[in-house]
């Protein structure tokens, strides 16, 4: 048996878990399909929202550097360019994590415990013309500008006014692009007021009750047609607007990336408040399959700050299950993190998530 703990995903959840577990003496390996660690963090050049004692006001990228430093000190092994493609129960109590390494060859890691911290994926939105080059996820646009320093286009229409849509619009603007408009099918803005205000101050219109009708262009995006919608979300004739743009970004929500949990046989629940189908887990972040834990966006779409707290709970619980932390000691640490989580899940939006997360944990005990 090679490993104590294999963590899949090196975003805030995975790294925070790695640090906690490794500090308690767990032998940890983190795998990530990307060439650099950090998950979403290194794209977040803005100051974080969230409550004050939780690093709000610090930029995501700086939180990333701090976590990496801590991983390094705790001797966490990080394998990059390594995609995990399956979880199998092998003989005894062991779990096999199937991976594809940078040479494209298949191999596997045997481990006592697995933590899935795979994050989320952007929801697609289909409309006529959505396959034209120039239509992309907002997250992809963010990766291009903030990681690769490439501006995807010069004039952008953003679909979706949640935090992702708002932040990425602002960052595209900072990167030198024009934002034609941010549209949202709902009658009100989805994201935080601070982010929306930043946009409107620069004169970018946020059009609520508007939807995309069609994107046109010969072999790439040339124009986008939008229309106002009525209460049933049907477009109102005569309200059509045309935007000459070369890029259309889609920011219509995220879904937990939970395929590995499916393949590992974990039980799921459908909770739209958390982004759809999510693996059921208990207070220790353990799923219904022994020795498979989850943390971060995979267990419900939230934020980097909650992802880190969940990651810490998972790391502590795993150390306890491996006999490296005394129960009382682990309990105290966990209660502490739970308090943080509870604070992070304040406010009207946080409350919905809080209730949904509590339901997810209750479902664990119902077979």
């Amino acid at each position, binding site marked *: 048996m090679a490993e104590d703990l294999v963590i899949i995903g090196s975003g805030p959840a995975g790294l925070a878990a790695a640090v906690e577990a490794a500090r308690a003496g767990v032998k940890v390996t983190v795998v990530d399909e990307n060439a650099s660690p950090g998950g979403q963090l290194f794209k977040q050049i803005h100051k974080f929202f969230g409550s004050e004692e939780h690093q709000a006001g610090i930029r995501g990228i700086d939180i990333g550097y701090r976590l990496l430093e801590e991983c390094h000190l705790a001797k966490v092994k990080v394998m990059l360019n390594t995609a995990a*493609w*399956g979880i*199998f*129960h*092998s003989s005894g109590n062991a779990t*096999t994590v*199937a991976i594809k390494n940078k040479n*494209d060859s*298949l191999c*596997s890691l045997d481990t006592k415990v697995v933590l899935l911290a795979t994050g989320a994926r952007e929801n697609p939105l289909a409309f006529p013309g959505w396959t034209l080059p120039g239509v992309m996820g907002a997250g992809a646009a963010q990766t291009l500008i903030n990681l690769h320093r490439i501006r995807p286009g010069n004039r952008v229409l953003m679909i979706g006014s949640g935090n992702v849509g708002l932040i990425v619009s602002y960052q595209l603007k900072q990167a030198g692009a024009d934002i034609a408009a941010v549209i949202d099918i709902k009658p009100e803005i989805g994201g935080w007021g601070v982010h929306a205000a930043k946009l409107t101050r620069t004169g970018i219109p946020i059009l609520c009750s508007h939807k995309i009708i069609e994107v046109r262009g010969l072999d790439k995006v040339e124009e986008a047609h939008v229309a106002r919608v009525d209460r049933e979300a049907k477009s109102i004739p005569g309200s059509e607007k045309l935007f000459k743009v070369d890029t259309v970004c889609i920011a219509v929500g995220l879904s937990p990336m939970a395929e590995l949990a499916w*393949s590992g*046989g974990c039980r799921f629940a459908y909770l739209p408040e958390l982004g759809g189908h999510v693996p059921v887990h208990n207070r220790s972040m353990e799923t219904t399959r022994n020795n498979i834990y989850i943390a971060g966006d995979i267990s419900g779409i939230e934020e980097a700050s909650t992802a880190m707290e969940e990651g810490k709970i998972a790391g502590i619980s795993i150390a306890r299950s491996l006999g490296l932390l005394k129960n009382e000691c682990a309990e105290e640490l966990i209660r502490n993190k739970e308090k943080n989580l509870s604070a992070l899940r304040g406010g009207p939006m946080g409350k919905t998530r809080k209730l949904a997360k509590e339901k997810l944990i209750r479902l664990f005990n119902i077979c």
Partner: protein
Amino acid sequence: MKKSAQAVIIGGGIIGCAAAYYLAKEIDDVILIEKKCIAGESSGANYGMVWQQTRQDGYDLAAARRSLEIYPQLCREVFDLDIEYEEKGGMTLFFTDLQAEAAKGYVEYKNSLGVPVRLLSGKETRSLEPALSSRVTGSLFCAEEAQLNPFYTTLAFARAAQKEGATIYQGVEVLSINLDRGAVCSISTSEGKIFTNHVINAAGSWAGTVGAMVGLKVPVFPHRLQSLVTEQIPKLLTRTIQGSRIARTSEEAAKTFQYAYDTTGGNRPCINQQPPAECIIESSLFYAKPTVNGNIVLGTACDFAGYNRETSYEALAVIAHMAKMIIPRLKDVNIIRSWANFDPWTADGIPIVGETGVKGFFIAAGHGTGMSHAPATGEALAGLITGSAAAIPLGEANINRFTGYREEC
């Protein structure tokens, strides 16, 4: 639920549904009972090959050839949905010169049985399937073979049966079969009791459990097969291919074209004959089936793991490895799903079809290649029950070939 029926079929796989169709054509009040859903087990998890080159002489081959005859007619006249039946021929690849040598004798033997299989060189093979690797040194090609969509075909049979008046209950499990003076008189299900004098055990890999309900040993075992399916891609293959086990010695080469895991050594199979214990994942045959939608289904890695339907790392890695070796362009193609399911297995590779020592209790189970057998099986079984003339003789497939099948169990 209905209280009585002339005949009750247990199992809504391809065999049960085909039997229901042919029986309902002849008699009233046919009921089919399926514990999960139509095509919810093996019949929805397979490659849909309707082949004859791999079938053993006798009942096995006769059933496959008869089915190849009937399917086109079913498609034209009976089925109300497109089962994607395509007569594109079947191809078995091999990889060494020793196997090419062994293939010559095999082709002669098969031709003498009336199977129009031909030997193709590596070049000829690649002219038919350009995506195949240069490691393929030749193939056996049989033009009179087909492929179909297994879900749609099973569903088409179920719908045809309903049109003929059969009733299908899904989500209902048969729990016991009640006898009266040694003859079937009723069954008990999770939803109640049905009086009937004819029960057909078409429970696939669960035929043993159903057999035990009347005190019979039915030696069918679940043979686990695993599969991968790719994303949709531009056309890469025209037809379903089978890759043989690579043979490096002449003894191995001679065994290239033995398909059934015949553990009987040509003797009468024994009722207690268990599946081979050794792990056979690595030496499994390879399959690649291009679907109408543009996905490619890849398999197999076989073993016996009871009713454990989890996939395993070893198996999926072996399949992926074979796929890359045989069809190099698959290297950069994404896999979207994987699954394991059970192929009903018998010791001599021949299904168990026909009447039994228990009056009114019939078996149609243990099909290693049920897609290739179903129409013929359904037709013959209906003939047996209604007393009409049989298109293919069932004798060889009877359970009484297993010594001791009526021992207590």
